[in-house]
């Protein structure tokens, strides 16, 4: 454990809201507006942190624990993620299971918190979230299984570190399929547009936003920051896969990785601007399709 090992989590903590800013800026440009400044998410978080919180008398500790657990899980996930060729602070065999488990814990508490409000509206979103994330999880784990098989490593850091240009030439089709599957998981888990619309609060088809409807002030800031960290974490998986720059120079690799993250945020903005939200009963089909991609990649890799 060294000082350099602290860089991936700290950079993640610092830059995660910037990704959201880039996504919304891209969407604004597509809509012909100038859009909010890139640093707007930071201002939003600061504004929310200054406010007080209001709790409904019907809620219990579970509702209050939700923002804390979401944020804690989001921060913890950063410690198993590599940054470019810089390995994670806590890289150990099987850390991808911790990755998935932390995301699941955050989701579990968001769902419990939504039910705890005893309002039917958040509960509706919670039931959808549970359905869709149950379908997204196989895709995530199968994709990681493919990477594990290809690189012979059980840790996210060495796994992504081993994805080089050579690996792409040898197993290109499988890696493309894995990247596609992980991208769909990213869209579903971070409630981006073909699955869910992060920009609306008042539609019957929304999922994530409705669950956190009753949080306010610092709690909402925690939830927003937690979901920004989750976006950062899943985007880091996709970017680590798609930007196989492993020169051995930490600074150069880190810059390439950062460029990949920014590119991915722009792609997210483009996807959100050009696609309509899927009807709810089509969403499971997309997620099953992502799992199908991952299984296909596994079959291609295994042969």
């Amino acid at each position: 454990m060294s000082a350099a090992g602290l860089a991936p989590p700290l950079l993640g903590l610092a830059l995660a809201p910037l990704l959201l800013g880039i996504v919304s800026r891209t969407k604004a440009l597509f809509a012909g507006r100038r859009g909010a400044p890139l640093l707007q998410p930071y201002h939003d978080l600061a504004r929310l942190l200054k406010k007080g919180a209001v709790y409904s008398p019907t809620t219990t500790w579970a509702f209050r624990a939700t923002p804390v657990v979401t944020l804690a899980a989001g921060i913890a996930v950063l410690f198993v993620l590599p940054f470019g060729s810089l390995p994670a602070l806590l890289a150990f065999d099987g850390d991808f299971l911790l990755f998935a488990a932390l995301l699941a814990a955050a989701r579990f508490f968001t769902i419990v918190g939504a039910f705890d409000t005893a309002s039917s509206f958040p509960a509706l979103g919670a039931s959808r979230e549970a359905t869709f994330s149950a379908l997204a999880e196989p895709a995530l784990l199968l994709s990681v299984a493919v990477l594990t098989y290809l690189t012979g490593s059980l840790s996210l850091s060495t796994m992504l570190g081993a994805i080089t240009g050579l690996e792409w030439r040898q197993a290109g089709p499988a890696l493309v399929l894995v990247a596609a599957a992980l991208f769909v998981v990213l869209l579903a888990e971070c409630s981006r547009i073909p699955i869910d619309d992060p920009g609306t609060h008042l539609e019957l088809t929304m999922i994530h936003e409705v669950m956190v409807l009753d949080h306010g002030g610092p709690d909402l800031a925690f939830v927003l920051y937690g979901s920004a960290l989750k976006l950062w974490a899943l985007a880091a998986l996709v970017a680590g896969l798609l930007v196989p720059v492993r020169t051995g120079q930490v600074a150069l690799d880190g810059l390439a990785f950062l460029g990949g993250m920014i590119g991915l945020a722009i792609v997210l903005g483009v996807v959100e601007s050009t696609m309509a939200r899927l009807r709810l009963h089509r969403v499971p089909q997309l997620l099953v399709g992502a799992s199908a991609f991952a299984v296909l990649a596994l079959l291609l890799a295994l042969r």
Partner: protein
Amino acid sequence: MTTESPWLDTLMALIVFTNLRLLGSSRLGACIRTVALQGVFLGLLPLIAHSNDLDWRIVLLAFAGMALKAGVFPWLFFRALRGAKVRREMEPYVGYSLSLLAGIASFAVALWVGSALELPNRAISPLLVPVALSTMLVGLFVIVSRRKALTQALGYLAFENGIYAFGIGIAHEAPFLVEAGILLDVFVAVFVMGIAIFHIRREFDSIDTAALSSLRD
């Protein structure tokens, strides 16, 4: 001839991808385009596989195949589609998510069969036999699991694509006449299907084949 060509593997993966898209898409127009795309990929297959020793026969057949599968057939199908007032395959016998899983299962089975199959010639790629077999299985699956005559015709076309891929990959010394004959056969079959769909639609105001089982003489 290189067997480890990444382009060939990519092409194989793309063909499997078109299979999955055919299984997972409910829009008839998208299905037609998917099968047309599959035709293009199949046409590129011999060109890439034999890129070192191309002769006019391979090139001619590849381009004739592509013109037919990506040009004439989609045009015929879209013509039939314009007449029939359907845009979507509603209520297939097997749902789309389950169809996707069936497609994956078919690929797994094809991989297993392909590894067990003893072939006289070496295939152009180790993936070729599994991909060709799974394309055939997917074609058959589409034929039995969809209700619209048009989708079933597309399934037939995918099935034929699988046979074509198998033929290209295994026996690249097949006589010109045989291959041209197969292309002609398929052309006639699709032409007849196009006309049949047109007539079924005119008679029954629908191309749902389930309606045909209620006929009495």
